[in-house]
């Protein structure tokens, strides 16, 4: 007997079985019904494990359609894609009523630097006699920019908590598995809306047993025990013990650089006295120095000083604890970097190109050339 992983065994057989995603299903069915050659492709996007591929596969099974599936991470270049889809897109299906193309994970496809994978996809969408469905995690990736205008975007959300529970309970019943309610709740919570990973976790918990108890959860690690950045900030700003402040960030799943900006953002949300704010920033300034020494010298031994100064240093900048509730904010700096990621990347590419042509550093180009070029182009 072939043992099938549960994620496959319990994949939805009908569209109505897809967990959650009501809006996406509706949109998709509408698109599918009204589709005719030349129209836009459907682009499913959303986090991993929420049912993008499942929905297509369920529809195909239900309506007895032939599906031609390819994973864009495996077939990255134009010629590879053509090989699989090329002729097929103009022919009718031999055994089934109709045909559908599913191209999975197009984030993995190459943009222009890798021999026109995206361009080939656009060609296929335009010429195909059959509907095309694409899936992606992040459709706003710069590589997919041109592709996006040939697609109807269909967003998938995280699977809601209750939908997750429902599905897990269903699987337990089918498998004859006795499972503590608390375990299911825990699995649903830690999966953060990723149904596939929840099912995977359930399967590995079950193993060969027919009953799962709360204590079995331990093997899955302690993701739920991880402290959030907010707890760490609270610790740093409220404690007067150097060691406690230093240790507070140990189990935060963010790197020191990011935590640095979280602390920077929130000093003024906690401290009120000018001399304390000044001292805290002085500490950050020292931490920053070590942060850059890591970079310049490529020597990670400086990291411990950076961390100590930004945590213990900032913690001990206050005379005594503020007895108040402070709302900690997401760092502006990281928000800014996130929102300009695309532009910065483009600018960097342009600068690099110029630096090759003009034989000087990108810094120099930014400082000495760009201002003139701006005036010239006006």
């Amino acid at each position, binding site marked *: 007997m072939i043992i099938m992983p549960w994620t496959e065994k319990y994949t939805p057989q009908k569209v109505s079985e897809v967990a959650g995603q009501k809006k996406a299903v509706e949109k998709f069915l509408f698109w599918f019904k009204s589709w005719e050659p030349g129209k836009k492709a459907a682009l499913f996007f959303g986090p991993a494990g929420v049912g993008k591929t499942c929905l297509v596969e369920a529809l195909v099974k239900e309506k007895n359609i032939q599906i031609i599936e390819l994973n864009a991470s495996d077939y990255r270049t134009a010629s590879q894609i053509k090989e699989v889809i090329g002729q097929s897109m103009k022919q009718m299906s031999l055994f089934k009523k109709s045909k559908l193309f599913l191209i999975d994970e197009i984030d993995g496809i190459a943009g222009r630097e890798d021999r026109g994978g995206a361009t080939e996809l656009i060609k296929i969408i335009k010429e195909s006699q059959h509907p095309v469905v694409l899936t992606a995690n992040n459709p706003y990736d710069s590589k997919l920019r041109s592709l996006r205008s040939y697609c109807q975007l269909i967003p998938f959300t995280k699977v809601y908590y209750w939908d997750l529970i429902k599905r897990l309970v269903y699987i337990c019943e089918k498998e004859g598995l006795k499972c503590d309610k608390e375990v299911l709740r825990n699995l649903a919570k830690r999966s953060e809306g*990723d149904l596939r990973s929840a099912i995977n976790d359930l399967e590995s918990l079950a193993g060969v047993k027919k009953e799962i108890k709360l204590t079995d959860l331990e093997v899955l690690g302690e*993701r739920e025990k991880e402290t959030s950045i907010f707890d760490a900030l609270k610790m740093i700003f409220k404690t*007067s013990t150097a060691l406690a402040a230093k240790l507070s960030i140990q189990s935060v799943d963010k790197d020191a650089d990011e935590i640095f900006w979280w602390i920077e953002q929130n000093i003024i949300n906690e401290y009120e006295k000018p001399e304390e704010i000044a001292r805290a920033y002085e500490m950050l300034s020292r931490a920053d120095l070590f942060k850059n020494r890591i970079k310049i010298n490529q020597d990670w*031994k400086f990291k411990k*000083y950076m961390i100590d100064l930004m945590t213990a240093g900032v913690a*001990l900048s206050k005379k005594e604890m503020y007895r108040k509730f402070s709302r900690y904010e997401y760092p502006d700096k990281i928000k800014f970097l996130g929102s300009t990621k695309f532009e910065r990347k483009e600018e960097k590419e342009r600068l690099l190109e110029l630096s090759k042509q003009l034989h000087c550093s990108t810094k120099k180009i930014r400082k000495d050339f760009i201002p003139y070029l701006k005036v010239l182009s006006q």
Partner: protein
Amino acid sequence: MENFTHTARFILICNYSSKIIDPIQSRCAVFRFKSLAEKDMGTFIDRIVTGEKLKIDESATKALTELPEGDLRKIANLLQASASVDKKITGDTIYDVASQAKPKDVRQMLELVLKGNFKEARKKLSEMILNQGLAGEDIIKEIHRQVYDLDISDENKVKLVDKIGEYDFRISEGGTDLIQLEALLTQFLLLSKK
């Protein structure tokens, strides 16, 4: 992975799960390996010691559980290297082989200087650098490790960490180990209780 579920199972191993992209994580059951408890390291050390018929004292076991920070492979390597030096292994052998500053020495040095006895502390320091041949960076690493245990105010601990980092930087910029560490010790001297 999905294409071959009928014929194969995959086990992926990584250091940080946060560095693995979601689409891959979502297709896996994630098992987290915790860093080992002291007890587990003890069992491992015992196994090697009995297997290799070594003699090892308590201070060595302690050094072996502290130095490699939970890395079993490092423990095995250290133990093997130490065994090739001497069949009787003590804590000192371990630190010598690992060429790490002995916590005991550093502790003594710091306590001396905090008592205001810079002269003796300086002697201790040159003993470590000149006689034991330790690198300044290794001594400074141990100093940093111990700051938090010292009997001084937390505010001063933070100040000292800043100084330690500064002198560590100067050493890597090419400063002379002995001079930089002496200068660092004088920063401790300023806090001595007279």
